[in-house]
């Protein structure tokens, strides 16, 4: 015995080593519990990150939209009186965001905002020969818009220049379904007529596949200037798309923008409320599972240590007779709990990580590609370790107190 550690450490380790079968079984139990937590956490985090990534690659974090048009009540001469009994909701015309250039310039300066892209979406009709399809035409500035919506990643046909498809005022980018329905490919001409009646002949410069049939048949992208002309809204935009540094702060920043600019700003968190409800439900159910796993681990540790206190009552008595204080005895058993938690979490983290790796390599989509990208945050292992050690110490509290309070005379009598 080298005095490399205080009495409590040496005694705790020796007690655990002496009851090695007991120690081995409880470490296995803790390891399984920690492995379940690590595996489920990694799986849930990866799936969530994948879903969030998919959502955020096809939409901005925040969108500024024109204010809702509302009808005002016709007031009478007397205060508090109205003349019209019924107020009808007015139709929502295409109206540009007022002073969008100034707002854009302000937002670009915001430290939490990465990209700002004014754009214009309007319905139109794509016509080729006898075939026609209704589309949602979005006018964009490709240099910034493609930083927000990663459309170039989904281009399946067409040349990319500096990683971006060509989009001049004469071009249009359409989806695979629309291209199939209209029988066009890259380089073909398409007649686009907007609801305003304005029409342009545009060239298909690229074709994308977003992995969604509806999105591939109804979406089309043109230059902002082209959309402005077609929608009869020259110089105007209908939305300002924004990305921020931390997507989960989008709602806070959106509220800040609303207050600062007086415009309506919707975050992706608000517009995808159901998605977040689902994520929260998932988190809650996982939290419940984690709680029960943690409780079973805690009771496992506690039961082993309670038995250990009974088995070692004579040892405790003799240690007390030798001058060991109650606090030292308390620490000996708390340390055993912490050590069990620590060792169990090391084994469990390895087991959980390897299980997740195996799961990721075996479970694939029908085309053989991965369901989600493999990633485990090192912080997951750290938190599993901390949690297991805390659980170990907490579980050891009752047996440790019992050991510390043992009357040495009674303890030695057995």
């Amino acid at each position, binding site marked *: 015995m080298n005095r490399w550690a205080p009495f409590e450490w040496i005694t705790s380790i020796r007690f655990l080593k002496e009851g090695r079968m007991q120690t081995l079984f409880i470490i296995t139990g803790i390891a399984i519990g920690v492995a379940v937590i690590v595996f489920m956490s990694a799986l849930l985090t990866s799936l969530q990150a994948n879903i969030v990534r998919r959502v955020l690659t096809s939409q901005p974090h925040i969108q500024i939209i024109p204010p809702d048009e509302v009808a005002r009540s016709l007031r009478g001469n007397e205060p508090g009186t109205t003349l019209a009994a019924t107020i009808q909701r007015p139709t929502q015309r295409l109206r540009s965001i007022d002073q969008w250039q100034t707002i854009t310039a302000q937002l670009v300066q915001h430290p939490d905002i990465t990209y700002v892209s004014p754009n214009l979406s309007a319905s139109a009709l794509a016509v080729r020969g006898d075939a026609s399809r209704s589309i949602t035409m979005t006018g964009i500035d490709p240099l910034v818009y493609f930083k927000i919506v990663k459309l170039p990643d989904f281009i399946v046909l067409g040349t990319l220049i500096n990683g971006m498809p060509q989009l001049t005022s004469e071009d249009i980018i359409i989806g695979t379904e629309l291209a199939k329905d209209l029988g066009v490919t890259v380089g073909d001409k398409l007649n686009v007529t907007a609801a305003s009646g304005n029409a342009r002949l545009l060239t298909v410069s690229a074709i994308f596949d977003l992995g969604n049939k509806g999105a591939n048949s109804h979406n089309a992208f043109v230059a902002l200037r082209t959309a402005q002309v077609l929608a009869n809204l020259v110089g105007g935009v209908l939305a300002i798309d924004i990305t921020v540094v931390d997507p989960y702060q989008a709602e806070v920043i959106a509220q800040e923008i609303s207050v600062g600019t007086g415009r309506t700003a919707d975050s992706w968190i608000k517009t995808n409320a159901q998605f977040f409800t689902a994520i929260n439900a998932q988190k809650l159910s996982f939290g419940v599972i984690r709680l029960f796993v943690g409780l079973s681990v805690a009771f496992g540790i506690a039961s082993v240590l309670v038995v250990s206190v009974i088995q070692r009552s004579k040892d405790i008595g*003799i240690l007390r007779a*030798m001058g060991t204080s109650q606090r030292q005895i308390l620490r000996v058993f708390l340390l055993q709990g912490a050590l069990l938690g620590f060792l169990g979490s090391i084994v469990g983290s390895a087991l959980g990580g390897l299980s997740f790796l195996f799961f990721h390599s075996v479970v694939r989509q029908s085309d053989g590609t991965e369901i989600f990208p493999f990633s485990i945050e090192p912080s997951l292992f750290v938190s599993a370790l901390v949690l297991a050690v805390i659980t170990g110490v907490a579980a050891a509290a009752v047996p440790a107190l019992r050991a510390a309070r043992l009357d040495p005379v009674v303890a030695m009598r057995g």
Partner: protein
Amino acid sequence: MADTPPVLRLEAVCKTYNLGTEAEVEVLHDIDLVLQPHEFVALMGPSGSGKSTLLNIIGLLDRPTSGKLFINGQDTGELDDEALTKLRGRSIGFVFQSHFLISAFTAIENVMMPMLVDQKFPNAAMRARAHALLAEMELDKWEDNLANNMSGGQQQRVAIARGLSMNPSLILADEPTGNLDSVSADTVFKMMRKVNIANGTTFLIVTHNIDLAKRCDRIVEVVDGRMEGQGADRLRVSR
């Protein structure tokens, strides 16, 4: 020497269990006892006479209901549990009938344990002292053996070495030869006597063996929780 306080002084010590209840029982009545340095004293008495209770009180493992207990002149009644534990660790060594070695540790580790608990000794000094004590008990060859792998006599000698490791002024031995054969018992007794003579450590030995008791400096008898006889007569010096 005149200024040296007695190692142990008991003044009118009483012990009552279940105080204030119908099951109240007084186990010890007005016990007075003084042990001087270098003394080697046998404590005798029939079973149930209160010897073990007295030993527990002297060993600071239990508190008297009334009376005073002084260890090296210090009144223990003024000390809290923490201070009593510290005093016990530094001033009193225990040797029990059932050895009570800690099975998870080797012989030398058991001897080092009180020093480790005290946290005052450097590692090298701790090991050297434990080795010297085991050599004194003629067990230095066995020092790395686990306690469980040693004979009863060897374990008892390890227990004596452990009792001596903090160089206490008082060793309390509760029937230290009770579980040993006559040869081992004689060896263990001689070892204790050797330490007593060489170091001046005071021994109080509980025993039922009259032959062993007669080899002590004096015999103290407890009968029905009282010291046998009164005043100076209660201490029957056998030698």
